[in-house]
């Protein structure tokens, strides 16, 4: 029974990883790509780790897998957030059909012009 649940969780993890990779390839700009890919692939890897935990129970492998889930969850999401903020400051344009850019409206980020960007950098540092 445990093996069946573990196999199903492994399949769910593979499915989410596939969806994340399709999003990484098909979506139009970097912000859409990152929000699709990071969330889906992180959930996929967490499902695979959960499959390991269910398959082995509280043995050496299982406890290591259980430990790896929060590390993976927080590390990948925080890294993605920092990366997307950095690329906004770097000046990578949004997709032309995007309707809102609240980060630039608040005065951060540098996709508008060079002068604004310099001021923003001084403000931050």
């Amino acid at each position: 029974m445990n093996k069946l649940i573990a196999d199903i969780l492994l399949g769910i993890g593979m499915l989410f990883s596939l969806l994340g990779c399709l999003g990484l390839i098909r979506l139009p700009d970097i912000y859409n790509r990152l929000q699709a890919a990071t969330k889906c692939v992180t959930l996929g890897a967490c499902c695979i780790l959960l499959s390991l935990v269910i398959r082995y129970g509280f043995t050496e492998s299982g406890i290591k897998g259980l430990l790896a889930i929060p590390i993976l969850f927080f590390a990948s999401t925080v890294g993605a957030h920092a990366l997307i903020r950095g690329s906004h400051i770097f000046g990578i344009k949004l997709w032309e059909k995007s309707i809102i850019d609240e980060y630039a409206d608040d005065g951060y980020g540098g996709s508008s012009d060079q002068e604004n960007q310099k001021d923003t950098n001084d403000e931050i540092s």
Partner: protein
Amino acid sequence: MEWIDFALYFMIALVALCLYRVIKGPSVADRVVAIDIIGIIVVGICIILSIKTEKAFLIDIGIAWIILSFIGTLTMAKYLGRRKLDE
């Protein structure tokens, strides 16, 4: 072919899919994002290998890979944000 073998080959194919974005990506940030995603998928491959071969040390390699990938992503984020690395 067993299910676990199929999962292994499937994840390797996903890495190949992401390499397409690494090669073609129009800007630096696209490539960094794709490499970040490849790191997470490689963690999944380590876990599947650990299930297949029943060796526990492969999970340690996965955890170390997560942390190194996190540090690399933060470094690239600081570089893209035009800040010095020791701020």
